[in-house]
């Protein structure tokens, strides 16, 4: 299974917790610290690398502050083959 990760723009997150609700593996939690707006931002806690980069959290985030990355198979270019 492809591996993924997310980056939450901490300063822009409003701590609404909707992303937590849709992560199929329950990998998102709220941080213990506050951002400048006074919200506890979302963080990915993924020690076992279970995030697949499915983008569901980003689809749900009302503030569009989640960027998603996924490891993707690529064809080696002839130079490396």
């Amino acid at each position: 299974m492809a591996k993924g990760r997310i980056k939450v723009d901490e300063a822009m997150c409003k701590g609404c917790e909707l992303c937590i609700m849709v992560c199929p593996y329950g990998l998102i939690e709220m941080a213990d610290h506050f951002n400048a707006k006074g919200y506890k931002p979302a963080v990915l806690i993924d020690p076992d690398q279970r995030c697949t980069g499915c983008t569901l959290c980003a689809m749900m985030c009302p503030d569009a502050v989640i960027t998603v990355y996924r490891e993707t198979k690529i064809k080696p270019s002839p130079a490396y083959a």
Partner: protein
Amino acid sequence: MVDVMMEKAPEKVMWAEKMVYERPAALSDIPTHYCPGCTHGLIHKLIGEVIDELGIRQRTISVSPVGCAVFMYDYFDVDGAEAAHGRAPAMATGIKRVQPDNIVFTYQGDGDMASIGMAEIIWAATRGENITVFFVNNAIYGMTGGQMAPTSLPGQVTGSSPNGRDVEMTGMPIRMAELLAGLPGASYVVRRSVHNIQTIKQAKKAIRTAFQVQMAGAGFALVELLSSCPTNWKMTAADSLTWIKENMVPYYPLGDYKVADVVKTLNNRGK
């Protein structure tokens, strides 16, 4: 960038990390003033994604409402105008008629459209204006602190219906999609929601179609979107989504209320 695992892998597979989702370019970097979890933001995001995908950012003009979305012109990286309360369809009519090559959309709440702006929306739809309208129905006047809207549900407790909406006195909540679909000038009128991933995907498709209708010169397109107001509903963001599903969807059924033949023939409709 995660690197390669290619040593003696017979099929020579390489893995590289790719960005698969990022904030749409059509949204500005300005943080919205919407309350945490309010789906106004989510709907902005879907509109932004569609503007990017259709490649129309340079020629799109937004018309903002009065309501919580009053500062919308700051949140999209497109040109924009601000209408007086309820008058967005009239303003969009004028802009589109003098700038027909631009893509003009309004974004209006239920108070904005269904009470003070009822005349403007009815006549814009009746004339078949070639504009795109997003109607954000959260069953309340959000911006002014949670008063009863024309769309508030029977029995719904609001600031101005503290004992629940009394339909004996106020009549039943108005169903805008059904009403506007009955007007011959309307080409595309649908209702969607954004309370879970499935409905979010369906909403995005409809938003895309509503822009494509305008791009094809096919007339008036409106997407009603059931939306949350956690603050005035006095609920968590997550409970608000459940409230949409359990209380709003039964009264405001999701579906296509008008898809004119000219819309059915559009290529890639809502792809």
